[in-house]
């Protein structure tokens, strides 16, 4: 079980949260002009490192706000928690 530090509410049990996958995935630009490969990469490819991963969580059973954390996918250790709009 993860103990997740919500930047608004402090450390809370994982069951209060909803996972949102990798953070900082940028929209690829004007869909009329990007090619199929770029569009496919945006839709289907996400970072999947064995190590630190910046990811989004939503405190759905608490403050209901989205935020980011950096969590190591090999150890589950969380090293950062920061609000939307803040730099990773």
């Amino acid at each position, binding site marked *: 079980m993860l103990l997740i530090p919500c930047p608004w509410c402090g450390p809370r049990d994982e069951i209060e949260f909803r996972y949102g996958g990798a953070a900082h995935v940028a929209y690829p630009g004007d869909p009329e002009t990007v090619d199929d490969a770029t569009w496919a990469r945006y839709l289907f490819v996400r970072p999947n490192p064995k190590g630190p991963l910046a990811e989004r969580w939503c405190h759905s059973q608490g403050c209901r706000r989205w935020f980011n954390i950096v969590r190591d*996918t090999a150890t*589950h250790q969380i090293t950062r928690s920061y609000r939307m709009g803040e730099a990773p």
Partner: protein
Amino acid sequence: MSGSEHPDHLWRNPDPKRSYDVVIVGGGGHGLSTAYYLARNHGITNVAVLERGWLAGGNMARNTTVIRSNYLWDESAAIYEHSMKLWETLAEDLDYDILFSQRGVLNLTHSLHDTRETRRRVYANQLNGIDAEWLTPEDIKEFCPIVNLSPDIRYPVMGASLQRRGGIAKHDYVAWAFARQADAFGVDLVQNCEVTGFDLDGGRVTGVQTSRGHIAAEKVALCAAGHSTVLASMVGLDLPIQSHPLQALVSELLEPALNCVAMSNAIHVYVSQAHKGELVMGAGIDAFNSYAQRGSPHIIEHQLAAAVELFPIFSRAHVVRTWGGIVDVSPDASPIVGLTPIENLFVNCGWGTGGFKATPASGWVYAHTIARGEPHQLNAPFSLDRFTRGALIDEHGAAAVAH
């Protein structure tokens, strides 16, 4: 079946040679079956299977051993049914008893939508020549009397599909059987050998760097399930794969109580009783990405609640052990098997929560792809470029494990 009396060694434990025709990265079930079919079907025996741990110690040791071919779309039905047919003669082919038991797989439904989708899948299976039946609650009572058919439970059972040819096999024996025969053909099964990099010459792969030295290879075949993106990233290849924990558990040994494999998509549990007597149950994936081979306890709690609701007779059983594997989840819950943009580098991944059942067919088509340099007709639809072309094969329903 002489193999069930275990000799001292089922395979050699060789040091890697300096070069091979084919290097397979990953010594799990799929890697071992690929090596076997490369030798048996294509006469290619100058092959190494490189395994960073011990043979078949990853997902092959951690799955719930369910075998079925009741997938929705034609492409999936064809490859999983090919696998089923291979399972049906596998013990003979490999001369090793793998305890394959075609006891039937029930997929229970709990809502109108669930029922419609499942019946649609029954019809689709029948059109593809795959055995499938629709069971009413009365039929279920007869086939598997311990299912709770009370209308008073939270999500009453409305019916089920049944694939009678589905069942289970002994996962370790399957791996050992493939390993033994591949070894007998001269394939080197190299353990404690982690791939740490690839040699590229222009757009072509020419070898691998490993924790046991450099190995040259005409062709390199990735077969590393949850670690596929770790390997692919070493050559700058993007794979649409996310690695998640998938947990399972067993009870203590019990007298025979459950005569089939029972799965429920909606309230989510899949359970069978192993030959030894323990109940084997699987859960949905943990939502977060992980390589830790463990998940969170609330996933187990959720799945046990479903099991006890559906099978009140299990309520006094004890959980003896839980564990997790790392599954390679693709966007459409279908595998990726085929060529890559890098010449002589092949990829086989994305089997996600359902790879065990595909072990023979995965090796069969992957061996063909590697030997011929082009996909077998069964894996041609499962190419990496389908995500660019938009030709996805969405099997989230038939995958029957919550994603």
